[in-house]
């Protein structure tokens, strides 16, 4: 069944120079800050000078992690879809108590450094986590009944925990832009709700679902911290293997081979995605025909909605809650006395954040760290969203240039943070772009990672703007800028907000590149968290959890502000 769409404007072949014009800035940015360091580091490492010898390579060291990487990424992505798609349905169609809170909280996992998420899962499901303690007390057990950490299940759970928000945000954003009239028409013509969903709703959602799936898959594909900290030594993905080879065995050439392989896979996956979504029909959204958002009907629908809300809360919020709880609760008041674990409320960890008892030069004041994190996040938003808009417009030009350049914008997701970090070191060592004197390299690195998200969010939205609206505006005498301001921007507004939130969260939580590029003068919150948790002592552990709670608060505040941004036309959504 083909869909009625207004696309007469899109058929006109646009001259390639227009696409090239839109590509100019993003391509220059990616070329200079991404491809240059990456190619330089590969060029250096894959040379005989570094003892590189392809024939001496033990290929089992390559295939084994690759196989596992593909396997776990596929499984994790399917599971994430299984949770995220019903979640998107829920957020698109229904109002329910706590909806805004749940939406906000579901985004928070995305920013948390893995070491903190591991601590959260440990506080919940670890041998001394709340769940195991409860079960032990309830059934009078000697040993903790749930063995969660260092299992394959822990990897899958953590991936779902991290990435469900991508599916929910991207898909429900597209879903609520759908033209309700199409569904109504199908139903008037006698289609059952299931048939309407299968033949109208789903085909229209396909681009968004595919985009979100691609992002989630690539995130899982390059997973590092989750595998290392929650999966344990039995499991190694390509990224973990790169880390081991580069940082612990100092076998940089093998690390380079592995990162090239990871890039090739990313490229292949992106091209496959583009092939799949090429034939997609993009439906126009229209101001008048919003999908209705309402309370669930009594009975069956209410039960389903309630179950979904509870499931999402349990999965996405409980580890965060366990973490926050642990940051204000002292376990065992008397150290060393085991058996009965004493608990008590304390703000001690938070108070200690403000103290520097040993007068350390590298003490990180929490307010300053929060400020630096926010400033870097704002710069990341500014860079990623403006470049992402340009890319989205370039993609709209239907130029052959896009087939080549589009997959290249996705590659930063597949680049190993370690390799890219090393590349930055060897390339950016002269002013003005020096890793030493140029703190803006950090938000630039964050923008590289955020850009794919922005592009995948804005792209489908932009394609969905009916040319008829623009043509009408032009016919009525509007200048190009006015057309953009009054037609494109209002229709893009919700997607702009979503992409800003992605840029914000990526910048706030990213640690891989941060650990390479951060300067002691500009510490960020994740840096401070690592600083505490890498030292023994109950206070350090508590402070790391307190700092993580602070990071969540800063992120929540950021999202709250972004969602209240009054972009033109936003009120209609």
């Amino acid at each position, binding site marked *: 069944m083909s869909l009625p769409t207004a696309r007469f404007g899109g058929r006109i072949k646009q001259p390639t120079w227009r696409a090239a014009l839109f590509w100019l800035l993003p391509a220059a940015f990616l070329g200079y800050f991404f491809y240059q360091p990456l190619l330089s580091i590969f060029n250096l490492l894959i040379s005989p000078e570094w003892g590189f010898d392809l024939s001496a390579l033990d290929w089992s060291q390559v295939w084994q992690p690759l196989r596992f990487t593909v396997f776990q990424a596929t499984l994790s992505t399917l599971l994430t879809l299984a949770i995220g798609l019903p979640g998107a349905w829920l957020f698109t169609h229904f109002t329910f108590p706590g909806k805004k809170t749940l939406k906000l909280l579901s985004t928070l996992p995305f920013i948390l450094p893995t070491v903190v998420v*591991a*601590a959260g899962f440990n506080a919940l499901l*670890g*041998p*001394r986590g709340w769940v195991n303690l409860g079960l032990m007390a309830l059934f009078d057990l000697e*040993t*903790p009944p749930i063995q969660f950490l260092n299992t394959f299940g822990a990897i899958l759970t953590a991936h779902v925990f991290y990435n469900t928000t991508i599916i929910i945000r991207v898909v429900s954003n597209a879903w609520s832009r759908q033209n309700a009239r199409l569904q109504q028409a199908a139903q008037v013509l006698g289609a059952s709700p299931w048939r309407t969903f299968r033949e109208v709703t789903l085909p229209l959602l396909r681009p968004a679902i595919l985009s979100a799936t691609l992002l989630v898959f690539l995130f899982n594909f390059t997973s590092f911290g989750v595998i*290392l*900290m929650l999966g*344990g*030594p*039995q499991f190694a993905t390509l990224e973990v293997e790169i880390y*081991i080879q*580069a*940082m*612990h065995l*100092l076998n940089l050439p093998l690390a380079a081979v592995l990162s090239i392989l990871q890039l090739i896979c990313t490229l292949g996956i992106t091209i496959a995605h583009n092939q799949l979504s090429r034939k997609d029909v993009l439906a126009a959204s229209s101001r008048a025909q919003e999908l209705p958002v309402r309370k669930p009907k009594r009975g069956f629908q209410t039960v389903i909605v309630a179950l979904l809300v509870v499931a999402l809360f349990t999965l996405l919020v409980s580890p965060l809650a366990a973490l926050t709880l642990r940051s204000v609760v*002292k*376990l*065992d008041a008397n150290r060393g006395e*085991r058996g009965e674990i004493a608990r008590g409320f304390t703000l001690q960890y938070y108070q200690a954040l403000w103290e520097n008892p*040993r*007068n*350390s*030069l*590298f003490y990180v004041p929490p307010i300053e760290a929060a400020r630096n994190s926010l*400033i870097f996040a*704002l*710069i990341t*938003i*500014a*860079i990623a969203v403006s470049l992402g808009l340009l890319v989205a417009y370039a993609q709209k030009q239907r130029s052959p240039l896009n087939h080549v350049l589009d997959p290249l914008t996705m590659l930063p997701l597949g680049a190993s943070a*370690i390799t890219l970090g*090393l590349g930055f*070191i*060897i390339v950016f*060592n002269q002013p003005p772009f020096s*890793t*030493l004197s*140029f*703190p*803006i390299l950090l*938000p630039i690195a964050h923008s590289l990672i955020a850009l794919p998200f922005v592009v995948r969010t804005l792209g489908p939205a932009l394609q969905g703007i009916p040319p008829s609206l623009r043509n009408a505006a032009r016919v009525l005498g509007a200048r190009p800028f006015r057309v953009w301001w009054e037609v494109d921007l209002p229709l893009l507004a919700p997607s702009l907000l979503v992409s800003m939130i992605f840029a914000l969260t990526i910048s706030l939580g990213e640690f891989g590149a941060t*650990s390479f590029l951060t*300067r*002691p*003068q500009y510490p960020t919150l994740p840096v401070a968290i690592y600083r505490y*948790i*890498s*030292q*023994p*002592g*109950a*206070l350090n*552990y*508590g402070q790391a959890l307190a700092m993580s709670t602070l990071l969540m608060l800063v992120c929540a505040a950021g999202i709250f502000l972004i969602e209240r*941004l*009054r*972009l*033109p036309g936003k009120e209609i959504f």
Partner: protein
Amino acid sequence: MKKTILFLSLMLIAGILAACAGQTPTDSAGDARTLTVMTHDSFAISEDVIAQFESENNATVEFIRSGDTGAALNKAILSKDNPLADVFYGVDNTFLTRALDAEIFESYASPALVQVPAEFQLDADNRILPIDYGDVCINYDKAYFEENGLTVPTSLEELIQPEYAGLLAVENPATSSPGLAFLMATIAEFGEDGYLDYWQQLVDNGLVVVNDWETAYYTNFSGSSGQGPQPMVVSYGSSPAAEVVYAESPIEEAPTASIIGENTCFRQIEFAGILAGTPNRDLAEKFLDFMLSPAFQEDIPLQMFVFPVNREAQLPAAFTDNVDIPEHPATLAPDLINANREAWINAWTETVLQ
């Protein structure tokens, strides 16, 4: 129109912030010279100690912290044609040969070395100078052993006895530096022919392996505030002192202690050196002298929880009360480590993980 103005002003603010952050803070101290020191993430020092060096030499010291030990060394090696710093601090004896082979350091026989015992001076050419040392040891939970009437093991050999089944957590040597150090302690004890058999017996006795120190210490170890199930963990000899210093409420005695026996601990020595090609050689020399001086050396223990190499340096009370320095720590020659690190780790992985 209001909303569009708001949107525009947000973008403007972001732009201004970007521009501000892009500016390097300019140094107001006039002609003060800058010395750049590259180091790893665990580096810490007191503000006033560095301020002392800065005022004595009319210099500013900038630190670049670059990830963990391996990451920082990689950075130094990769940027050797265009050094990012004047001094590098943080090569340990397991990476020593690699660092020397890469020829990133210039020799400097600091006069302060007379106060450093010869056992720490591993490079005859003084390209790198010892600054501190520490031991990777098994920590145990005192209360657990007391409550269960268990005797604390005193040697690696005893760990395979059935009463210690399932009680020890170690780190993967492929992903963790204390994990690698403990593997090397077993190699020093049982030899290259015997260590794999020993590990097999550890596995049969319920050994728990995790990837990183954070997980081992805070999730698995019962003596930390993580309250895990294992009462023994591979950590640092100084961790008991840190448990006292960073206790929630002041405590007299550490809840944990280290097993100090022959070859139960592996000695890690950390070195600093002058990066080849520095334009600030004289200042770099002064900084190395300063790092070996009592002021710096006595600040090390409570900042980084390692021991000063200078025999004149005094230890703080938290250390003298809670940390035992092993008399016979395990050591291996840096050349041997460099030649076999990969083979040992691979063999270990096959024995323990597969």
